[in-house]
């Protein structure tokens, strides 16, 4: 049976305009949700920018997803001593080249060495430091 926009008596199918508005509103909410829920960066990416911008280098992005495929949380947060709070660790290139923090692996032995600046220093200049929660929440306490 072909669908018509009017009933057999010539009345509009949407007997009341309210119903039409209801559908339009539903469609509007749906499009809004679709638009806002597209994630920006990946969930749990950490931006380090205590010094990078000042030193004329791109801020650092630490991707949790990449590292947790290869290492358990305890390796960095217990063995290497990274505090579990973004900003609580004073990570400097000096320390890293001495084998601390990132330098425990990024030494050309376990992972690629520090000469590859752009692989870590890869964020858009001016990106503020912190946890970048890309999916559903945007870090602690932010809905």
């Amino acid at each position: 049976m072909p669908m018509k926009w009017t009933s057999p008596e010539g009345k509009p199918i949407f007997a009341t305009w309210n119903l039409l508005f209801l559908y339009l509103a539903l469609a509007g909410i749906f499009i809004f949700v679709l638009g806002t829920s597209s994630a920006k960066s990946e969930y749990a990416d950490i931006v380090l920018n205590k010094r990078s911008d000042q030193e004329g280098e791109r801020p650092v992005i630490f991707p949790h997803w990449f590292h947790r495929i290869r290492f358990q949380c305890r390796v960095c947060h217990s063995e290497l001593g990274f505090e579990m709070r973004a900003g609580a660790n004073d990570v400097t290139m000096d320390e890293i080249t001495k084998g601390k923090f990132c330098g425990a692996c990024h030494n050309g032995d376990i992972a690629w060495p520090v000469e590859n600046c752009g692989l870590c220093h890869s964020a858009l200049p001016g990106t503020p430091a912190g946890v970048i929660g890309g999916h559903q929440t945007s870090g602690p306490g932010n809905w």
Partner: protein
Amino acid sequence: MKQTNINKRLSDTHLVFLFVLFALYCLSSQTLAGNWKDLTEDGLHDPQNPSLYLLQNPGDALSRLPADSAGNQVDWIRALNDGYIRPRSSLKENVPVRILDSDILLNKTGSIPRVRFPHKPHTQLLDCQNCHEKLFKSKAGATMISMGQILEGKYCGVCHGAVAFPLTECNRCHSVPWDTINANEMDKP
């Protein structure tokens, strides 16, 4: 009689509309389920960075792991237990891995379901000292925790909402309804 026919046709049309909306919704949740942005277009990485092409895109790795609806859209514990990932437990040799298989029941949740805290998946990834004694006292019930503090990034919120599954997933923690089990059935720490 004729009136009922018209009403039926009206409701058919509305059903069709609702179905189309529902189908669109399903389609969107399907496509959003694997919505990992490439690094060049994630709004965080600098597309001008000449080294960017050397880095792995999230979708290349995460699309092969068990799916989840939140966070990285990966069920990390299933990925670990089913052998999809085999993350190293230490850099040096002879670093002990302490796994504790014990559940803690947090029952001061008012009328909403109680919280079952499973030590096992947490100790599979973390060391005891990551949570004890700084964040939580080892004695069950000795640490006062509120949902408000968690939402501010304290206690469970140090990880959940930042790097582990987000705080939108209420039932994953609040999983023990009041009418099911007796608190005595849970392990004491």
